[in-house]
């Protein structure tokens, strides 16, 4: 369907542009400004050029945090996207079960992020938590405050628990938009369940999965409150993700220059990957349509 060509459409997007630009552009320029200066206090600053960028790029603790972040986001996508699709496929298509499933799924999404951390502290503590007590009852020593592996396992459980429903909700909406006739045709052709999924359902979910993958990538890459409340970045530095490290520099040491340079690099990494995902997913869809 060809769209109408009309630059007057700008009047319709103008309010959005103004309201987003108000909060976006001035703070961004201020951060760029910080990143090029050494700031000691109000009015005391000196221009340092690309100094902070060089320093940040060679900071090995930042490299460690970056790899941890990639590992975390990678695992998040690998677990949550397939699991979310499976849940969406299993959900009822009509009757009271639809509302019940949607309401249940949405619950974890509606809890403030620091409360999520609190819930999981309570849930996994060995003395008062169900999960902690149960796993210790099986004679497995489990303590997310002292063992890095246990801390990671707890974080992944929390993350999957928290965000898989978002993927499931989006995938469900994509599935429900497929006309029933497609499935009848597949049935007549004797297509297997896998073939139906691979050639009908998956391509039809491309749009919603693009949103799901992008949202999950961006938000997991920026994750802060939940691991901060649950592990505080520890034990040691084992769960210090990029944003936790960034807050340590920006608030803990109040090094605004390096922190600003760090944020901009951080932003560019997310931008780059989101753009790659976006392009890749768009092109995948084109192949399917022609084929």
């Amino acid at each position, binding site marked *: 369907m060809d*769209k109408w*060509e009309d*630059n007057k*459409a*700008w009047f319709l*997007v103008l309010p*959005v542009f103004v*309201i*987003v630009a*108000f*909060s*976006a552009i*001035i703070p*961004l320029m*201020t951060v760029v400004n910080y990143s090029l200066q050494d700031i000691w206090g109000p009015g005391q600053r000196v221009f340092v050029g690309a100094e902070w960028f060089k320093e940040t790029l060679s900071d090995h603790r930042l490299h460690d945090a970056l790899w941890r972040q990639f590992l975390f986001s990678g695992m998040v996508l690998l677990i949550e996207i397939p699991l979310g699709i499976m849940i969406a*496929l299993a959900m009822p298509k009509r009757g009271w079960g639809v*509302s019940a*499933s*949607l*309401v*249940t799924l949405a*619950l974890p*999404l*509606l*809890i403030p*992020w620091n*409360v999520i951390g*609190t*819930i*999981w502290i*309570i*849930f996994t503590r060995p*003395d008062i938590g*169900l*999960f902690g007590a149960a796993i210790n009852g099986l004679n497995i020593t489990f303590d997310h405050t002292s063992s890095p592996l246990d801390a990671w396992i707890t974080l992944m459980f929390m993350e999957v*628990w928290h965000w898989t*429903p978002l993927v499931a*909700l*989006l995938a*469900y*909406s*994509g599935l*429900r*938009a497929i006309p029933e006739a497609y499935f009848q045709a597949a049935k007549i052709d004797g297509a297997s369940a896998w073939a139906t999924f691979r050639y009908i359902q998956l391509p039809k979910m491309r749009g*919603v999965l693009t*949103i799901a993958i992008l949202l999950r990538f*961006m938000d997991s890459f*920026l994750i802060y409150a939940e691991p901060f409340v649950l592990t505080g970045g520890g034990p040691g530095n084992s769960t210090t993700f*990029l*944003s936790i490290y*960034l807050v340590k520099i920006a*608030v803990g040491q109040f090094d*605004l220059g390096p*922190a600003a340079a*760090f*944020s901009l690099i951080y*932003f560019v990494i997310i*931008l780059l990957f*989101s753009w790659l995902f*976006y392009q890749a997913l768009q092109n995948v869809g084109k192949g399917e349509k022609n084929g």
Partner: protein
Amino acid sequence: MKIRKRTFGLALYFGLLLLPIYWMLNMSLRTNADILGVFSLYPTDITFGNYIKIFTDKSWYSGYINSIIYVSMNTAISLSVALPAAYAFSRYRFLGDKHLFFWLLTNRMAPAAVFLLPFFQLYSTFGLIDTHIAVALAHCLFNVPLAVWILEGFMSGIPREIDETAFIDGFGFPSFFIIIFIPLIRAGVGVTAFFCFMFSWVELLFARTLTVTDAKPIAAIMTRTVSATGLDWGLLSAAGILTIVPGALVIWFVRNHLAKGFAMGRV
């Protein structure tokens, strides 16, 4: 047989999903001494003391009111600016449309920590610190792009002949948009409102930075009060359970819309 296995899997998943929430509910109905003293799968001496404290202490319950006010404002603002913009993206080609669409999305990608200071400066220049509208506006940064994206999907599902017929019948754009078009994507508006409500309700960093006392969100009050009194697990759990209630009410009221919206759109 196969269907039954699926349903069983789904029920198991929902059970696991509800377990941590159930555990918090369990904790919230007990006193702190009881929680630390005995391990119990369900509350034996049910007490509503934690809830009563929250509902009678202004420094607690005002947090819920503040959160609800700025979240509602944000949802209203996001929807009213995103509706015409989404229409433009779904119906027109114009200078820079694709770039603008992706630029909107990039606003979800900035790490908040360092942006908080310039944000604070910007909003204090306009004298907006500690007002509900400040938080509502700040949350537009990530909610408006999402709202535009979701609504655009729903609008593209409506055939353009409807617009053309209405214009031939002599409708102007505003009356066509409000009387004919918005009712057609009612369910999509419901889904979008749900997402805006959700992301604004759970966000903490901006909300905490831009408020002092008069507009302080409940999530921030929880962290502050807890560190001041030592950890009272019962009170903390009760406050946590109460943060779920408004959202749960919202989905309960829009559940049919939501089911229909998720069924018709590609979100």
